[in-house]
């Protein structure tokens, strides 16, 4: 019965999730930092955008470690590819990636968190506004995915 909800198996999801939590936890135990990922985009823009919003200490003061952390994300996935995997390229249409990306970047920064910031760090910090944010983005994402499917989009 339960297998029907997980046609690709369960173990790799749990192991991967615990590795993600391990990375977030390690950053906290070693350095006391909260490792969301969407702030990286604003903090990196602070290198080139001069306006006062981007030049706040919370971006300028964290942009270096956030960039190193992001480099780690790339390395970690590359490590997986080197050991286990074959390269995989998404078949999702370019316009969906671009428009979706704009909504993701704008929304996550307006909300001050994404699937990592609200979903992992916020919930692990027992921040109930983050739980509401998670439920909100799950609801709109499920709605949008069904809309795209209904309209004949792939996959």
């Amino acid at each position, binding site marked *: 019965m339960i297998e029907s909800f997980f046609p690709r198996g369960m173990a790799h*999801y*749990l*192991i*991967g*999730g*615990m590795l993600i*939590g*391990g990375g*977030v*936890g*390690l950053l*906290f135990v*070693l350095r*006391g*930092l909260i490792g*969301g*990922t969407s702030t990286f*985009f*604003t903090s990196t823009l602070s290198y080139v*955008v001069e306006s006062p919003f981007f030049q706040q200490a919370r971006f300028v003061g964290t942009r270096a*470690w956030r960039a190193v952390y*992001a480099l*780690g*994300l*790339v390395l*970690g*996935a*590359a*490590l*997986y*590819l080197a050991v286990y995997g074959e390269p*995989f*390229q*998404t078949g*999702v249409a370019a316009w969906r*990636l671009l428009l*979706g*990306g704009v*909504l*993701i*970047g*704008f929304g*996550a*920064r*307006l*909300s*001050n968190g994404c699937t*990592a910031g609200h979903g*992992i760090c916020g919930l692990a*910090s027992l*921040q109930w*506004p983050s739980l*509401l944010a998670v439920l909100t*983005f*799950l609801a*709109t*994402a*499920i709605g*949008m*995915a069904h809309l795209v499917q209904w309209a004949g989009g792939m996959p």
Partner: protein
Amino acid sequence: MTAPRWLAALVAGTLFGLGLAWSTMIRPEIVIDFLLFRDLGLLLVLGGAVVVALACYQIAPRLLSKPLLGGTFAQRESVLDRRTIIGAALFGLGWGLCGVCPGPAIAGLGAGNWPLLIALVGIFLGAYLQGRYFPKN
């Protein structure tokens, strides 16, 4: 900043990226399958990540006076206001449209998922538009 502190951020990010790849979250098709209720694996990923992070966040400050490499334990404080909820709603629309979120958009490059560069450009653009036209300190 000293080398071990940089290395800590790099290793933490590497674990995160390894987990994203291992759990196949760097494949938008798998995320979209979750959103269409065809494969609920994403809930296991989120659950596994939250349990481990929760243990670290809650236990470390009780056992240690400061982080092992120095500094102070930061605390995430989420606020409940319109920006948080409207932003989350817009984020979800984008996530549902393309099956990508910020972590996998970055990590996917390491696994050769080059089309995600397009999503990365979009995310930077969205973050710019937010900071430029809807800033709040």
